[in-house]
């Protein structure tokens, strides 16, 4: 029986936050400490589990076994029931999510989790949505988890309330609701032609789609793609991104750093799986659009990064740049680029996340995030703002130095300059783009130029802002830095440092990930051939 439990590990990233989030709902607002402990505990366990899963995948994969494992939710056979699929990519994304989750949560416990009610539950639900989206192998289930994570992101975005957040949320919600409708339309069209929703099964069936149905199929996929691209923030669909994220509370924004990657993930997953092969008329469909769209996105991000005045918006635009880079890299359609792009995804996400956390520390002197509110139900929210000050923050003498150092660290990371992992990933991408032997298409050159140029733009922008903020003369008091705020930033940056030091193995992982994405047959086999629990037969 105990050996069996390892099999269920894959469901934990979805189930645990759900149960914990629900249980926390039962706690009244005044049990703030219990909530914190529960949430932090959950996030820690999640991190542990996701690392376990990562190790599981990697050890199986590197040992030459099949790394992709599927889990039949409800024990219904594969194309019919919902399947959770753990493979290189999803394990990676899970680990990334739980890392961001834990760090942001630690950060939030310093003060932000009290800026509004029910923060912990929302936060955990957000993690659940992300994990579910990364794990699922079913198109419609993906939609459901998209909605879970979106709904939670609405909640988290509004956490703390205030004019900017509400205004941003209005746009964000409206756009995303519209986008969800597109998702539905796309998924419905795909179903209408293929008759299935399971991604592996779709992969099997798409080549068999009649020429007559191809138009509908592609139309559906294109609409679906638009839905993903909106999430990813591709130009001209991503205007909302920077403003929305900058309005969110810092730990929330830090977690949101991965939100736009969900779109990229979905695109990677769905498109490479369904259209990655060479067979059938639908192969490699839409790649140029991704490539050009991605490049346009980078350009827009560069413009934005240079244009905006606040660090938060800058971080938002750097997210757009990173999304654009990823999209273009996916569109460039080569395995080697993909590995670099994945590395880049991890590193830029961590970097931007840390950046959001740091920005608040830097800009903290200027505002008070907590707006008083009145309770709706009597038992809710027993006067949190007053209690804040009772919690003593450990003031580190060299606060500013640490913040400054962290800032420089983040800026380098995002800009992709040495010595950090951002550099390695950009280098890997460029290396991959040039890996074509004699003929490097002009688009690749353009993309390389943009990758480098965008790094430079970020450097120009952050150096301006950073110098003004950190080096500039200021009579404002040095902000107090709590350990619980410094630790997560440090953790994130340490992870990036680790990525750099252990770039070799990490890169190997990424390469295998890229290969596994190209290996559609392996995925299909792993998913469709997974067997049900034996004792099933005794069911009536």
């Amino acid at each position, binding site marked *: 029986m105990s050996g069996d439990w390892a099999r269920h590990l894959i469901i934990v990233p979805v189930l645990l936050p759900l149960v914990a989030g629900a249980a926390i709902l039962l706690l009244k607002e005044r049990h703030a400490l219990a909530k914190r402990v529960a949430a932090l505990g959950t996030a820690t366990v999640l991190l542990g589990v996701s690392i376990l899963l990562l190790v599981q995948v990697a050890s199986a994969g590197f040992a030459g076994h099949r790394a992709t494992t599927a889990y039949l939710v409800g024990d219904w056979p594969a194309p019919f029931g919902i399947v959770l699929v753990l493979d290189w990519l999803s394990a990676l994304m899970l680990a990334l999510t739980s890392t961001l989750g834990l760090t942001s949560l630690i950060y939030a416990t310093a003060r932000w989790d009290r800026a509004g009610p029910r923060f912990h539950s929302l936060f955990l639900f957000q993690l659940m949505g992300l994990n579910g989206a990364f794990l699922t192998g079913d198109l*419609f289930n993906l939609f*459901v988890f998209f*909605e879970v994570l979106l*709904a939670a992101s*609405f909640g988290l975005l*509004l956490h703390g*309330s205030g*004019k900017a957040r*509400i*205004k941003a*949320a*209005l*746009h964000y*919600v*409206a756009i995303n*609701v*519209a986008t*969800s*409708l597109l998702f*539905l*339309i796309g*998924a*419905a*069209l795909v*179903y*209408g032609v293929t008759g299935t*929703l399971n991604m592996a099964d779709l992969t099997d069936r798409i080549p068999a789609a009649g020429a007559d149905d191809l138009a509908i199929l592609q139309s559906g996929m294109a609409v679906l793609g638009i839905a993903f691209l909106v999430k990813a923030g591709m130009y001209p669909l991503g205007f909302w991104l920077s403003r929305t994220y900058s309005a969110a509370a810092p730990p929330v924004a830090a977690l949101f750093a991965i939100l736009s990657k969900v779109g990229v993930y979905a695109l990677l997953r769905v498109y490479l799986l369904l259209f990655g092969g060479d067979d059938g008329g639908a192969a490699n469909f839409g790649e140029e659009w991704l490539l050009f769209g991605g490049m346009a996105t980078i350009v827009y991000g560069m413009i934005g990064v240079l244009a905006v005045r606040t660090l938060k918006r800058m971080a938002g635009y750097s997210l757009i740049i990173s999304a654009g880079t990823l999209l273009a890299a996916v569109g460039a359609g080569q395995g080697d680029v993909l590995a670099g792009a994945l590395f880049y995804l991890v590193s830029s996400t961590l970097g931007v996340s840390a950046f959001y956390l740091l920005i608040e520390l830097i800009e903290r002197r200027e505002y008070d995030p907590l707006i008083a509110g009145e309770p709706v139900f009597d038992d809710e929210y027993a006067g949190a703002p007053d209690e804040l000050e009772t919690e003593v923050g450990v003031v580190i003498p060299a606060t500013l130095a640490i913040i400054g150092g962290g800032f420089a660290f983040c800026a380098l990371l995002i800009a992709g300059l040495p010595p950090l992992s951002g550099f390695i990933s950009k280098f890997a991408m460029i290396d991959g783009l040039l890996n074509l032997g004699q003929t490097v298409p002009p688009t690749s050159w353009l993309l390389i130029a943009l990758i480098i140029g965008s790094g430079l733009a970020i450097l120009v922008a952050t150096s301006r802002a950073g110098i003004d903020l950190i080096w500039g003369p200021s009579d404002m008091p040095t902000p107090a830095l709590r350990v619980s705020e410094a630790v997560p930033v440090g953790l994130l940056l340490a992870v990036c440092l680790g990525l750099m030091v252990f770039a070799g193995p990490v890169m190997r992982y990424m390469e295998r990930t890229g290969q596994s994405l190209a290996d559609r047959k392996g995925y299909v086999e792993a998913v469709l051939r997974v067997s049900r629990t034996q004792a099933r037969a005794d069911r009536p």
Partner: protein
Amino acid sequence: MELVLALGIGILTSSGVWLILRPRTFQVILGLSLLSYAVNLFIYAIGRLKVDAPPIVGAVAGAASQYDDPLPQALVLTAIVISFAMTALLLVVLLASRGITGTDHVDGDDGE
């Protein structure tokens, strides 16, 4: 039947799209409601139309062709719930925005 439903979906979509492009928050919310009706019908229609073939099986299930495709129905049910949730959320955000900006223009300023 198909044609009528297709036209109906089209009209709902048009109305919905027209509304979400309007500048008032309430228009947007109604537009999204209309659009979600349209999309629900659309998903449903993707399972093809069948009259008098509800997917309720007897003790022994008949051939699949005797029943309307149940899966799109299940999907629509999920979609209905989710779009209800989102409408509620959007509404509240709208109210909050209205309260805080003093206008119900989507961008927080007046003028058309």
